[in-house]
């Protein structure tokens, strides 16, 4: 009988099973797979932001050493290859659909951003392919380009796509403007703030890679790719781009070294290697170098907004009005349209009882890399806007910033709480997370720390953010009604083997989240099988029935729930078998962590007795119950989940250099039930590192002509260990009320809650300098300009 030590179940900080291979360099990433006869692809990319291709001559390239083929968009057109599809359709205010221009795999007649793929050279080695790509003669008729979001909507701006007037992808809104105007008319105070949410470049540690294979005997295609959702890639690429039936297309996402959203989407290179492998009858591999990642991985954020908050005389919020321009880049990436709409505007109530909200969003095309979801996706933008606005409102009403938040919090007894922007929160306790964070961060003792820092010549500030997010995306019917072209359920299969070990097939995909450990803990907790005997299989369409993948902090809330549902089916079947073996009635069988018992007796059977009987059915009611012990469940969530919490940042600014140093960071998050506290802490810390990165360091810079100035680590500031602060992570739990585990999700909270806390701290440190609005990142040069602005102007 398997006896499970209780520390392996829910709540145990089990060390990560997967680290055994990762720490020894034995992970198997896409680029680690090499096949006999494999060829290498190099993609020729546009050096221009906008140009008409007058000719693409591959003759010389095709004759280079080692070259097997050079393909262009024209070659793909001959094979009827479709464009890259967009998975979400937004409708304009007037009900008409968004502009959805073609997104060719290889450029047809125009290139629209630096890095836009034009042709592919395929050769025996990667260097030969690159040599050949350089030998392709392209004549460009360079066109005027536009990179900046607001410039793109100015009259006379260069048109990124013919037929898309004003570069407008959509003009969308949510909320009742008339009700809002009425609320504003009652306001004692209206606070208005302009904000930019800086554009980010994801930079997963593993660059994207793809390996396409074709078996001419069977006609089967296989794609290994760096993806967060292999089934979605199979669906999109098979059905929309290459027209390969799913039965003939296997997509494998093996170990993946970080995604942060950037590996959700279906990218051109996946289609290129799969199609070329078919044409050439040989495996074709492509692996991005870091420079390519900068100009071909979908970027994140990039909003320009004005927000107005109406308050009554007591600081109660009466209404919120937001106008946002969202940069889509040159083409619509897979989920791009939903990010600045349903993942953004629906979050604008935050933790507050704002009775009416109106938000309009104009999505615009520019000559830049496509923008899509990046860790938090829409929710960091909403949170930054709201939490900055709250601080400015506190300043301008004279109400303490903590007190202003308290006055507007949704109260613990108000759940379920219906916001004016579609979402219904199921649970939360924002007062509790706030109180706990204030104590941990010693908010009350801050002024003495500020005074001590001042003696050292430093400007010290403290900032707070009481955020909320919606994740665990999402009920299929809801997202369908909002424009998703897919359902967002998840699939889980539990296979109990004859001798009692378990294989779990999950449609979620782990690329750093530790699923192989957390999911095994669910099985240990529920079925009583030691985690060492639980194997989690994911990322292979040939093994897992189906799956929507991992993003939006959904793996545990949705994928874990599917597994729970499948385990319920295992237990139900197991009870029937146990009833037979113990000659009892099914209704009298109880199950607890691996043991079936006839209620009120000491008659028991272990799970392994049941599984052996199920697979070796010598003594088995074969007429009544099918042999085997394997169950599959699809779980479609009833609602989003709503993690929330409080982040407090403390910073010091050196007035001489302008450098902002993080000195302390406190997070108290409500992520629902915690399965593995160590993994949750790691996820939250990682998210906070990215949030601090956005607030202080990272920004994607294009010049006016659409050249990417921050095109490498030399100019794009990734956070390093010494840029971060000691981070204290704690959780305060209210359970999700609608999924079987009570879990909410922890993957994105760090990146969502932290940026406004950091910027509020910076603004607080600069309280003597009259700073009202401050765009991220708070770089040394920007800080110095603020601190020395007056002096510098006087000197000139």
């Amino acid at each position, binding site marked *: 009988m398997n006896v499970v030590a209780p520390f392996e179940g829910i709540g145990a900080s089990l060390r990560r099973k997967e680290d055994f291979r990762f720490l020894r360099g034995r992970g198997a990433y896409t680029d680690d797979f090499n096949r006999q006869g494999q060829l290498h692809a190099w993609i020729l990319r546009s050096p221009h932001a906008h140009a008409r291709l007058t000719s693409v001559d591959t003759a010389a390239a095709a004759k280079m050493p080692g070259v097997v083929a050079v393909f262009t968009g024209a070659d793909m057109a001959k094979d009827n290859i479709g464009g890259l599809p967009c998975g979400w359709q937004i409708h304009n205010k007037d009900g008409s659909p968004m502009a959805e221009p073609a997104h060719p795999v290889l450029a047809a007649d125009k290139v629209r951003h630096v890095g836009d793929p034009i042709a592919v050279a395929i050769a025996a080695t990667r260097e030969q392919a690159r040599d050949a790509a350089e030998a392709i003669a392209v004549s460009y008729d360079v066109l005027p380009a536009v990179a900046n979001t607001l410039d793109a909507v100015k009259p006379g701006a260069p048109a990124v796509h013919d037929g898309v007037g004003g570069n407008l992808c959509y003009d969308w809104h949510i909320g009742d403007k008339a009700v809002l105007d009425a609320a504003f008319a009652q306001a004692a105070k209206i606070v208005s703030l302009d904000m930019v949410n800086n554009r980010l470049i994801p930079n997963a540690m593993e660059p994207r890679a793809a390996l396409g294979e074709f078996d001419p005997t069977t006609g089967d295609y296989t794609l290994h790719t760096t993806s967060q959702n292999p089934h979605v890639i199979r669906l999109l690429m098979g059905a929309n781009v290459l027209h390969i039936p799913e039965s003939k297309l296997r997509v494998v996402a093996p170990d993946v070294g970080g995604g942060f959203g950037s590996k959700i989407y279906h990218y051109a290179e996946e289609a290129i290697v799969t199609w070329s492998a078919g044409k050439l009858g040989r495996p074709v591999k492509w692996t991005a*170098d870091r420079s390519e990642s900068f100009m071909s991985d979908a970027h994140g954020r990039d909003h320009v907004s004005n927000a107005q908050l109406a308050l009554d005389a007591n600081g109660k919020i009466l209404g919120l009005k937001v106008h946002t321009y969202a940069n889509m880049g040159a083409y619509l990436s897979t989920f791009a349209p939903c990010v600045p709409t349903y993942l953004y505007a629906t979050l604008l109530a935050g933790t507050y009882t704002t009775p009416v909200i109106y938000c309009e969003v104009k999505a615009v095309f520019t000559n830049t890399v496509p923008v899509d979801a990046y860790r938090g996706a829409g929710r960091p933008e909403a949170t930054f806007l709201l939490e900055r606005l709250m601080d400015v409102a506190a300043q301008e009403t004279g109400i303490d910033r903590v007190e202003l938040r308290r006055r507007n919090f949704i109260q613990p007894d108000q759940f379920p709480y219906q916001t004016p922007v579609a979402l219904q929160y199921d649970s939360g306790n924002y007062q509790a997370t706030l109180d706990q964070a204030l104590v941990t961060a010693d908010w009350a003792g801050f002024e003495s720390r500020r005074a001590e820092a001042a003696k050292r010549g430093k400007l010290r500030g403290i900032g707070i953010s009481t955020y909320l997010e919606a994740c665990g995306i999402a009920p299929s019917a809801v997202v369908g009604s909002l424009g998703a072209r897919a359902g967002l359920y998840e699939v889980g299969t539990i296979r109990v083997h004859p001798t009692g070990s378990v294989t779990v097939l999950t449609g979620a995909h782990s690329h750093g989240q530790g699923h192989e450990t957390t999911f095994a803990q669910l099985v240990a907790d529920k079925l009583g099988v030691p985690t060492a005997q639980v194997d989690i299989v994911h990322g292979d369409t040939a093994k897992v029935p189906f799956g929507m993948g991992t993003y939006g902090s959904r793996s545990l809330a949705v994928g874990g729930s599917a597994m729970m549902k499948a385990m319920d089916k295992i237990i139900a079947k197991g009870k029937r078998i146990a009833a037979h073996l113990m000659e009892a009635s099914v209704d009298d069988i109880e199950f607890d962590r691996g043991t079936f018992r006839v209620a009120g007796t000491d008659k028991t059977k272990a799970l392994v007795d049941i599984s052996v009987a199920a697979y070796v059915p010598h003594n088995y009611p074969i007429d009544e119950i099918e042999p085997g012990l394997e169950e599959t469940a699809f779980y479609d969530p009833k609602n989003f989940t709503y993690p929330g919490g409080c982040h407090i940042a403390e910073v010091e600014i050196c007035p001489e250099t302008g450098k902002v140093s993080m000195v302390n960071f406190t997070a108290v998050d409500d992520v629902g039930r915690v399965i593995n506290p160590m993994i949750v802490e790691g996820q939250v810390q990682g998210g906070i590192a990215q949030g601090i990165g956005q607030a202080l360091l990272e920004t994607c810079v294009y010049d006016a002509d659409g050249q990417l100035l921050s095109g490498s680590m030399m100019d794009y500031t990734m956070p390093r260990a010494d840029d971060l602060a000691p981070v204290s992570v704690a959780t305060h739990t209210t359970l999700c009320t609608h999924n079987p585990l009570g879990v909410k999700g922890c993957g994105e909270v760090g990146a969502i809650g932290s940026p406004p806390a950091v910027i509020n701290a910076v603004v607080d440190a600069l309280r003597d300098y009259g700073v009202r609005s401050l765009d991220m990142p708070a*770089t*040394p040069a920007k800080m110095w300009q603020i601190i*020395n602005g007056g002096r510098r102007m006087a000197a000139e």
Partner: protein
Amino acid sequence: MYDFAYHKPGSVADAVKLLADPDAKAISGGHTLLPALKHRLNKPSALVDLSGIAELRGIKRVGNAIVIGALTRHVEVANSAEVAAAIPALAYMASLIGDVQVRNRGTLGGSVANNDPAADYPAAVLGLGATVHTSSRKIAADDFFQGMFTTAMEAGEILTAVEFPIVDKAGYAKMRNPASRYVMAGVFVSKSGGAVRVAVNGAGPCVFRQAAMEAALAANWSPDAVAGIKQSAADLNSDIHGSAEYRAHLVGVMAKRAVAAAG
């Protein structure tokens, strides 16, 4: 990278012969050259690997100077007891270059020969008034650094060592570029008897001496002496990380800190 021939000579004389080919390039630690090759920014016909030349290695005290061979890695200078005793600011400067991997590979010769405006070594060489030894001559620091990535060395000339005079006091302070962590603005100061040198790196297209600060420090060696001196922003670098004005301001701050560090 593009294809190239590879040579590993055993002596400076052999290396000079191989470098007679104008398209051949010397390689030492490779931490500047290899990234450039990988990005295909450079297409040498041959790489002449200097790492097998024993005479280019080592740190020794010669009279009132520390002579450091061109192949000496940053980590060796940072950890050298000899350097720490004689010119602690030089060891300190080396300990701040890049990160551990960079210091374990990058060499004095490669850094000085490359003369990257944002590199650390040029400030120490100019700030200490060192003498650069090459395969054919000795060049004073004041004549050596001529412009962005440009030095007095001619094609095929090999930097063999740098002779750093032992001074009374020296100090170095820098502000790093937040992204690359190369130098955004740095100042290396030294004092030897009445002679004061102030070398500025990072801020301009090439390391340069700050005459007004030198005069002020000669009169009064103290951080306050440089505080009032304004560095002109004209001709300084300006990029997405900071304007020329910001860099000019940083020169004043770093000068103050460098003098304070020198004591």
